[in-house]
């Protein structure tokens, strides 16, 4: 695959073109968020030469009313209250961080168990855990709707945290198990010969070695919870996570593309940072333990 100089340049060009093609929708989205309203709909599409504006961010994140911003003119009404999205960002953060923490604790313990002990039905146990993800979101939401109503968990952060944890568990277990499998069992055995208990081995020997894997898993769990839509939509009314909030900007009187793209762009920032931080571990660990023979 080394090839000639020409072949190398050709590969570079193709690689950049492919990646840029994949980034185009994101670019277009962020660009729309700083365009004045009319420029979003311009035909042919405009890339440069519009008056960039931060108005959409001021309305969704800053909580300013559009009417004040426009000096009282313009057809759209709807003050700060309906488009102000900082509470949604807070709700999403609480739910995503909470469910990530819970899923990580449960999955770490379970995958250590699955990785370190011989079990006859291990494949079936893993498949059973994986099968939790096969429940259609509706199938989870309908019963949880009634259960949470009875438990007083409807429209609560805790309820959503529990639901998201359940969705995240299968992938977290699969990932963490593959990270644990990479740590040689001989390490455990020698530590136990030196008098360490199994739990000490777990906490002081194995866990520090899979730190990167834990970080990568945590980031994936965070992203899945941060982006989850249907269950949040069905289980809450007062609490509005960001994806649910954004879809409320599509109204019967029109779609607020400027505000949608602004909030949508802002919502990407934390996940972007997180995923870039754990990039290295993701590329190493995402074989999902499937290279074993």
């Amino acid at each position: 695959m080394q090839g000639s100089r020409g072949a190398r340049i050709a590969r570079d060009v193709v690689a950049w073109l492919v990646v840029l093609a994949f980034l185009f929708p994101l670019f277009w989205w962020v660009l729309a968020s700083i365009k004045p309203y009319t420029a979003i709909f311009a035909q042919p599409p405009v890339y440069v030469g519009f008056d960039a504006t931060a108005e959409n961010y001021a309305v969704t994140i800053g909580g300013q009313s559009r009417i004040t911003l426009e000096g009282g003119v313009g057809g759209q009404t709807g003050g700060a209250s309906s488009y102000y999205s900082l509470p949604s960002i807070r709700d999403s953060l609480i739910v995503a961080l909470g469910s990530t923490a819970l899923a990580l604790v449960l999955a770490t313990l379970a995958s250590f168990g699955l990785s370190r002990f011989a079990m006859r039905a291990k494949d079936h146990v893993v498949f059973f855990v994986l099968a939790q993800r096969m429940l259609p979101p509706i199938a989870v939401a309908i019963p949880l709707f009634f259960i949470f109503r009875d438990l007083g968990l409807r429209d609560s952060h805790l309820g959503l945290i529990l639901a998201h944890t359940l969705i995240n568990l299968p992938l977290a277990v699969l990932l963490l198990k593959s990270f644990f499998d990479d740590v040689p069992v001989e390490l455990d055995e020698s530590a136990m010969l030196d008098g360490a208990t199994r739990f000490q081995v777990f906490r002081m020997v194995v866990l520090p070695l899979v730190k990167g894997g834990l970080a990568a898993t945590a980031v994936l769990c965070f992203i899945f919870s941060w982006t989850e839509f249907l269950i949040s939509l069905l289980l809450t009314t007062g609490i509005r996570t960001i994806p649910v909030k954004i879809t409320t900007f599509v109204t019967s009187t029109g779609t607020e593309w400027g505000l949608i793209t602004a909030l949508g762009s802002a919502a990407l920032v934390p996940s972007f940072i997180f995923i870039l931080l754990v990039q290295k571990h993701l590329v190493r660990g995402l074989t999902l333990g499937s290279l074993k023979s």
Partner: protein
Amino acid sequence: MSTAVRGRTPLLPRWLTADHPLPWLAPMFAMILAFGIYPLAYSIWLSLHQRNRFTRVDEFSGLANWVQAFGDQRFIDSLLVTVQYTLTCLVFQVVLGIAIALLLDCERRGYGLLRALMTLPLVVPPAVTGLMFLLMQDGQFGVLSYYLKLVGLVSPEAPILANPRTALWGVMAADIWQWTPFMVLILLAGLRALPKEPYEAAAIDGAGFLQCLWHLTLPMLSRVIAVAVLIRTIDLFRIYDYVYAMTAGGPGTATETLSFYAGRVFGVANFNYAATLSLIMLVVLNVVCFTFLKLARVRF
């Protein structure tokens, strides 16, 4: 095992200690039991009952809901849409995923950045991705529609998402854009873990790139591909967000997937029938995945 441990009188039976897998797995299973199995049982109960419209009490109705589903043409149609959606997206994501992973698996400068950029679509909430592609495919002002019209692939009279023949492709474009990077990520991880020796041997034998790909890379990656396909199949089959954001199942029912149909039934408060539809999905998905795991001989 040291003599100190052997000499101690056990306080607990072994299956309650850290030397047995049970305590390690128990917290997770408690969670699954409470919020996975109990809801499942509740769904089954719901599917065997029908709500009396006047007394608003669930009355036992046997398999009436199930029988109704198998005679429900709209359910059959949505099943076909879902299968078409799942298979088409899988093919695109696997083929593109392999091609792009091979392209980006390079140690030269700049490729680390390319790999990082390639993961960015993964962090976009699917509902937002749906809106993103809705904006680009709008018949009047969409940037994608504009260029496709320019080259004559889309006629101005039939916008992509308003035409029953192209609407599903419009929705699938969003899915393929978002999840091909997931395939790339998993396959890159797989490529990194491959042994180098077979390639050196093949190079000595004068094997070309395609021969190496077909006889070495793909067979050695087959397990990784299988697990990735499994995870994607599970998520594709339950697709909801893109449909919700882009077409709401329309035009007509051209893009109505199973999840979306079940959601619509839920929306009109027919919880019993919605539960039945979800259970059918669960059964189909379980059978498909279990068979696939057996055929692909994946072990965990």
